């Protein structure tokens, strides 16, 4: 059925298309918004624009028909700017009740932009399973009853998207898993925050987009220069392009490094070093599976790995977080199990970090180790909402509370922690606690300077200076997610080079520090949204374990418990620097200074 209403305005902008698609799934209708240029300058794209629309319905439950699901590209998408083939998915997280968002790659973002849309805002609830198909300016609503219940790979096989980009949910989302993900173009995911469930409550099974347009670029020569500068910096980055970097080994390259730094979460964060790590590292996967390089559209790093086992479907190799959590965190040394669990989570559409961390929590509480069979069976139970899976699929915190052991949930604001132990990097400790989406390493990404030594190394066992570092980095990464680019490239390049690309693409004169100011607005808006939902300093905290128990020292590295007094002092400094009150709440004066509305508070 085609319900095309053509209000699309031919593009006169550079960088952006000038058109935002609003879809109402209750009425299966759509409209087009054409914001003025101030809006684009203020929110940029991706995370910024998604946050703007989420703010309008911030206090609604995630499953309310008027709750938005936003997918936005950025001004650099579908240009030659490196790693810009990304978009940002934003809604309210079913797992945490906070801002729920995730960056996603593949080819979908490029296709959406080429179809002529800066992004889309989806509201309403369809009475039946539905798919949205967008071909350039045309929007089709397709019944998806026949796809409901199918896993993400089966959906891909049925729809055969070809050059189109495809995002779909799997059974995990349909069955109410709070950390259900959205699978994009088969091998990519909007993994965290449970955004798959946001699709499912709207009965949205899939989104398929194909476009044939182009992003208008104001200064092609300037963009080419910026691109060359970024390439040159990337080539100089050992983490990205070095012999042991992401391009050579995938993100799994981090596995040995984190273990050698004594910050690999082991046994549900009871330890920080895993003695079996040398046999489960990226080199071991390369030897066993001989995977090929793979990546998002427009990226030269190609950090993903795809194995093509004989007689089987191509299979994405696990990323670092999955490799670590499905081994060290749950006490397993079974590489095949990691690959199988990763594949199963991908097909079900389920975040591997949350899934593994919840299982690690279960192992600690019950004292039962996993066999290959028992672990895979529990993943099935989670995704299909049966048996013990009914409790596990609510996430580690909900599960631990049900079991009477909330202290065993290694989560911040109900989001399970990823594979960097905060006792081994105090910026990470602060970043986890303060992140607006819960236990997330990517908001401030302090691993860059605390481990990768970029732009320079900082003392990872000190809070000195970290409050401001975290604040600046959060603003910085909010820009990255709004441009929209990949965070990995910022191990090498900076906003100095990306501002040049932004200016060349959009024609809007802008420098690195101007972009960071936009990032500050975007991040503060998220603090406001969370505050509207009752979150404050009581939630900006880490599980007690990190303050009371040491990690696993060795190799002349001592991993002590985090000093709580110092942690709280650093957090208090952060509040002052961010412009929050002593309880972590936003201030009207600051919000207005950033050009944000206050009336909702």
């Amino acid at each position: 059925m085609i319900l095309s209403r053509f209000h699309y305005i031919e593009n006169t902008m550079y960088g952006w298309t000038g058109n935002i698609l609003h879809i109402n799934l209750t009425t299966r209708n759509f409209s087009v918004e054409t914001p003025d240029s101030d809006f684009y300058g203020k929110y940029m794209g991706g995370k910024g624009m998604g946050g703007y629309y989420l703010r309008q319905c911030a206090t609604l439950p995630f499953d309310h028909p008027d709750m938005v699901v936003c997918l936005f590209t950025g001004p650099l998408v579908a240009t030659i700017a490196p790693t810009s083939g990304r978009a940002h998915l934003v809604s309210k997280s079913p797992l945490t009740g906070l801002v729920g968002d995730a960056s996603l790659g593949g080819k979908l973002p490029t296709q959406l932009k080429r179809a002529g849309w800066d992004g889309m805002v989806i509201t309403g609830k369809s009475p039946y399973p539905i798919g949205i198909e967008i071909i350039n300016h045309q929007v089709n609503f397709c019944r998806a009853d026949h796809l409901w219940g199918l896993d993400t790979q089966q959906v891909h096989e049925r729809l055969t998207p070809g050059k189109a980009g495809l995002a779909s949910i799997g059974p995990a989302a349909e069955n109410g898993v709070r950390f259900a993900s959205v699978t994009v173009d088969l091998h990519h995911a909007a993994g965290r925050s449970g955004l798959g469930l946001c699709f499912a409550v709207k009965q949205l099974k899939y989104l398929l987009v194909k476009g044939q347009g182009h992003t208008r670029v104001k200064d092609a020569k300037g963009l080419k220069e910026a691109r060359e500068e970024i390439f040159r910096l990337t080539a100089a980055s050992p983490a990205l392009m070095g012999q042991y970097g992401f391009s050579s080994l995938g993100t799994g390259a981090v596995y040995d490094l984190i273990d050698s730094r004594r910050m690999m979460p082991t046994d549900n964060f009871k330890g920080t070093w895993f003695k079996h790590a040398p046999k489960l590292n990226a080199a071991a996967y390369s030897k066993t599976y001989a995977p090929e390089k793979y990546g998002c559209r427009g990226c030269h790093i190609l950090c993903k790995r795809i194995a093509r086992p004989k007689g089987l479907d191509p299979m994405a190799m696990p990323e670092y977080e999955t490799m670590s959590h499905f081994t060290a965190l749950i006490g397993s040394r079974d590489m095949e199990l990691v690959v199988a669990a990763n594949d199963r989570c991908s097909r079900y559409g389920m975040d591997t970090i949350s899934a593994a961390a919840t299982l690690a929590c279960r192992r600690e509480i019950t004292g039962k180790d996993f066999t290959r069979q028992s672990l895979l069976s529990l993943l099935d139970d989670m995704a299909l909402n049966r048996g013990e899976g009914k409790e596990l699929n609510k996430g580690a915190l909900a599960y631990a509370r049900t079991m009477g052991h909330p202290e065993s949930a290694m989560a911040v604001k109900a989001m399970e922690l990823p594979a960097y132990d905060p006792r081994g990097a105090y910026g990470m400790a602060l970043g986890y606690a303060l992140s607006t989406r819960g236990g997330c390493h990517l908001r401030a990404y302090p691993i860059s300077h605390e481990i990768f030594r970029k732009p320079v190394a900082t003392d990872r066992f000190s809070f000195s200076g970290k409050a401001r570092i975290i604040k600046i980095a959060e603003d910085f990464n909010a820009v990255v997610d709004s441009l929209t680019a990949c965070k990995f490239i910022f191990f090498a390049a900076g906003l100095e080079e990306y501002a040049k690309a932004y200016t060349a693409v959009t024609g809007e004169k802008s420098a690195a520090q101007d972009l960071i100011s936009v990032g500050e607005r975007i991040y503060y808006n998220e603090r406001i949204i969370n505050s509207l939902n009752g979150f404050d300093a009581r939630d900006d905290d880490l599980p007690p374990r990190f303050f009371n128990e040491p990690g696993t020292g060795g190799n002349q590295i001592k991993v002590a418990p985090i000093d709580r007094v110092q942690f709280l002092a650093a957090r208090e400094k952060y509040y002052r620097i961010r412009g929050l009150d002593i309880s972590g709440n936003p201030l009207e004066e600051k919000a207005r200074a950033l050009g944000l509305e206050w009336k909702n508070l």
Partner: protein
Amino acid sequence: MEELVKKYANKLFSAGLAEETGPLSPIVGGLDDTLVWNRTGPEIKVLEQVFQGLNINSLVFLRPRAPYEQIIRYLSQKALDTHGLIEPKDCETRTFLHDLPVINRFSPDKIVGALKKRKSVIMAVPKEGPEFSGIAIIAHGTVSPEQGFVVASSVCFACFVKFFADYLEDLQLGRASKNSNDLFDSLPPDIFLGQPGLPDLAKGPFSTEEQLYAAIVQAGRKTVEYGLVDSYFGNISYCRNNILYISQTGSSLDELEGCIDPVCLDGSSSAGLTASSELTAHIQTIAQTGCRAILHGHPKFSVILSMACDPAEKAACRHREHCHTRCPQKRAIGRIPIVPGEVGTGPTGLCNTLPPAFGTSNHAIVYGHGVFTLGMNDFSQAFATLLEVESTCRNAYWDKVRRLRNHCS
């Protein structure tokens, strides 16, 4: 933060870039929730406003010592007469700094405007106002005062290299100005003096990890002390039992304790993810030559002379805008090979261009970048060669200039 601002002020002094004390000594500021400075000074009032205008956590204000002060003054004046930018062609500037903006007013707005875009700004302020006049470099950081230190130090290096490289070219083209001749003549003669003698470095081969770690740390420190590299740059490695021990990326050669990565050459581990950007070049060089030790510094005259080319040939060369990656000539200074190549990997990366140079030599200069030298058992030979290469280049540069000056007069 107090500790860091003092540390990097001291490092600017010990690198020979600044006075240790007094009104010309560096000012370094660090900001977490409160702003701290290493010292007081009339410039701080303006610098505090710079902090307010930027999302940064640190700032370095460096009044460079001679000869950098005179060189930067000269280049700044030329830049201000045109488009306000100094555009050095050395590798570090090309890769990391791009260009060096110059302004002539010590005003917060002007400084903020420049630092919004770039990592540093050069002040060339004629006498006016009470806070500051003269030459200074301001550089900022978002995670540590070390960033400002590195950038300010790189600006000094880049300007030094640019002046001497441009001057030689101008003499070759017969267009050296009176100002440039005067500046050259006014520079302290110790620029052209070599270091006295060689340091007594640990003798290898090293039988234990402790010995080789100590040897790497010692050689790194001496390389900085002898002025063969600015602290932050360069790299060093030693191979033993199929493990390459190499300095980490972004480590300072004079502070290598705890900053050396053991990299298994059998590929069984990726723990060397934080190893130097030149890891692959080191590995391939060791595989090709069988050496154990590699030392890489940025001695200035080696870098300067590597960029010198016959002007007529250069004018006719279709790759003249890409000498650093596409120079088609097999070039050398005496018997020292010069190769093109960019930092790190990629088709024009050093990992591809450097190792072939070691087929006939135990040393090589990378165009506009630095020198790599090898040692079979320890760093003594590599260090001696590095020193000798620089000495050869310094003398060759001086001879060329003298000849050209005589010819012109």
